[in-house]
């Protein structure tokens, strides 16, 4: 029944799982934002996430260490980033196409490794919820905000950190200048390539964590193509958020709250066709995107390879 939705327990449940579900989006989208701020469009996020998810899961499964799993996912993501950086920065490849290439690579590779190394779907015990004395006991709020696992907290910490790095540090200044006017940055001795290498590798690392957050913190399984488009949504969230961490947070929350709502509606057997329910977050996101067409411009040099006249 629809009225079942409006009980306190259910509402708290919807909000709590909304916060949880936003985790992978936040990691992936903030990583992507760093890349785009420096002028690199990385469409390979999804592939990086899949490989990260597999690496984290497999290492956690075989060694029993979640942290080692997470670290492996970060390294795998970073290496994917490194390859992407080489292709786009040194070889001046078209960024959109190379990104799609890396997506397909991650998709195929994670599937192959899964078939070879595991074969069947298994589960691990993921990162546990962390109980914060006092805070976790607050009714409602405690359940929503303070009974989450470490990766969820990490994702929320990442938002102010990213804002700070981009706006208050010399590194952030360089990143922004390289994305807006690489010629100007270059003429002041800022290495456009080095900055772009940095942001793409950082983006890859964060995508790796995003993948790990799915496989060893939220769902605790690995399946073929388990991200199912999540990485692409993350790219869209960067535009949605107007290239600002706070905007990305807003977008990620909106998307995952609606996702959480539709999941709960299915759980409560509220009679709507499941296809429609699953479609809901996407439809709403598009509508909001259209309604609030961001006034913020994309970085001027986005997806343009940099080459000195030489």
């Amino acid at each position: 029944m629809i009225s079942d939705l409006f009980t306190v327990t259910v509402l708290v449940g919807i909000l709590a799982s909304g916060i949880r579900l936003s985790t992978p989006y936040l990691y992936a989208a903030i990583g992507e934002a760093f890349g785009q701020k420096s002028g690199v469009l990385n469409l390979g996020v999804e592939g990086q996430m899949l490989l990260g998810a597999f690496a984290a899961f497999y290492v956690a499964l075989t060694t029993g260490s979640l942290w080692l799993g997470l670290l492996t996912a970060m390294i795998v993501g970073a290496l994917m980033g490194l390859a992407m950086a080489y292709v786009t920065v040194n070889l001046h490849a078209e960024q959109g196409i190379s990104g799609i290439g890396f997506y397909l690579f991650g998709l195929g590779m994670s599937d192959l490794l899964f078939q070879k190394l595991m074969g069947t779907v298994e589960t691990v015990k993921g990162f546990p919820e962390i109980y914060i004395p006092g805070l976790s006991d607050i009714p409602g709020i405690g359940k929503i905000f303070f009974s989450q696992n470490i990766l969820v907290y990490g994702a929320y910490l990442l938002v102010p950190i990213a804002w700070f790095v981009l706006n208050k540090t010399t590194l952030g200044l360089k990143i922004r200048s390289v994305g807006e006017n690489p010629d100007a940055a270059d003429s002041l001795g800022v290495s456009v390539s080095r900055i772009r290498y940095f942001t793409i590798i950082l983006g890859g690392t964060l995508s790796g964590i995003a993948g790990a957050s799915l496989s060893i913190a939220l769902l605790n399984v690995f399946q073929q193509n388990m991200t199912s488009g999540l990485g692409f949504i993350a790219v869209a969230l960067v535009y949605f958020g107007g290239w600002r961490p706070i905007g990305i947070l807003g977008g990620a929350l909106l998307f995952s709250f609606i996702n959480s709502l539709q999941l709960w509606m299915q759980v409560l057997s509220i009679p709507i066709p499941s296809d429609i329910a699953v479609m809901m977050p996407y439809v709403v996101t598009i509508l909001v995107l259209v309604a609030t067409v961001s006034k913020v411009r994309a970085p001027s040099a986005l997806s343009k390879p940099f080459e000195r006249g030489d």
Partner: protein
Amino acid sequence: MTETDKLPSGRDRIESLEMRGITKRFPGVLASDHVNFDVKSGEVHALLGENGAGKSTLMKILYGLYHPDEGEILINGKPVRISSPNDSINLGIGMIHQHFMLVQTMTVAENVALGLPSSRGLLTDLDRVSKRIIELANLYGLKIDPSAYIWQLSVGQQQRVEIIKALYRGAALLILDEPTAVLTPQEVDELFVIMNQMVKDGHGLVFISHKLHEVVEISHRVSVLRDGRMIGTRLTSDTTKQDLANWMVGREVGFTPDRGQVECGGPRLQLKDVACGSDRGTPGLRGINIDVCSGEILGIAGVSGNGQRELAETITGLRKTTGGHVILEGNDITGFDPSDITDRMLSYIPEERMRDGMIKDFTVAENMILREHEKMPYSRYGFLNLREISRHADELIKKFHVKTPSRETHAKNLSGGNIQKIVLAREIFRTPRVIIAAQPTRGLDIGATEYVREQLLEQRKQGVAIMLISEDLDEILALSDRIAVIYEGQVMDIVPRAEATPAKLGLLMAGVHPEETKQTSEVF
């Protein structure tokens, strides 16, 4: 080293810098052909040459942006390796580029701080940078707001930021690539004060300009490049403006075009109480009333940033008006799309041609049909007619002497002046009814300036109504039939050419009311 060998910034001087046998080839062009060039501490060495002669290329090599195919660079007699701007900055070389190297979406302070180590380590120290900017600005008499965004600034103001950037880095040797092209005469005077101060302090300066009177005024030595070859170096005191012109072009050049008499027809472009906002949220135009008649050149004089950009943009439909009407040949076009206005044969030569007038990554030929690409004969049923486009491009390249390896060369690879010519050629050639020309000869060499002015006068003869927006009073006086002086978004006065003197215009440009200018001119 003794104390006196240091610059005020504490850096060592560059007593001498020498470039030897520098050669640089680009696809289809030999931009530098075994060039020798040197600068000494305490001098201004002017570098002259026509558009595409290789001035910027030579200086970009010195700054580490281009790598020479042959040749070496020596500082104080010792060979140095300059493979990137980082090297040259560390060696004490600074450069003010012909095309601004500024990040539009960042503030003045951020642009200055970019790439410099911060006093707070990893964190930015923009407050301290701002303070230092204001100190420097006061020291050299430049007005600048460190917290303003670059996109809010006029071209002249942006140039000041570039100067501050170089001063801030305490360069011992400063390359100024056409710094005056975008400045008003007053600003040029201010710049020269700064340059003289720097020279006295022991800096070495390279000064590139197409304006010979500036070269004669400021430089100690002058060198001329032609087609990538160094023609020679002389003491400025041994030459005159006319000598330099002939030497550079290789033929006699005239300075004042013949305006001739043209009957003015009825008004083709009328502005009635036009008002609009500016990018800073302040009123950009505050009730402008102007008519431009057929067969007339109306000069718009004024100090940069007094509404010139807004004026051009409201007429061309690029900026929303907040009041008043723009009337083109009797039809109210207020609020029309820029493309509709274009279709009514209004041509626009924007001030910032690199940004507003062309697409850098398009070829020369493509840029030449930007405005007409949807029309016959350049396209038909949505298909481009490549043969016609090529023919058109070749014709314009020939007519306007655009120096380019081919029509398929990307616009960004042309020299600064030749990029300008693409826009001019495109806008003038389409037989417009009205032309809005903002700083049309900025960055052009003497020959090309002469040509463009002739073209504008030719259009005037054909009955085109021309609005000439320029900060160059010489240009305004040479071409205009009437001169409107604009100050803080209002027209101070409209003066017929015969009654206009630089002194009178100067007072109006400073915001002195016409009645008062009459009194003052009587006193003089």
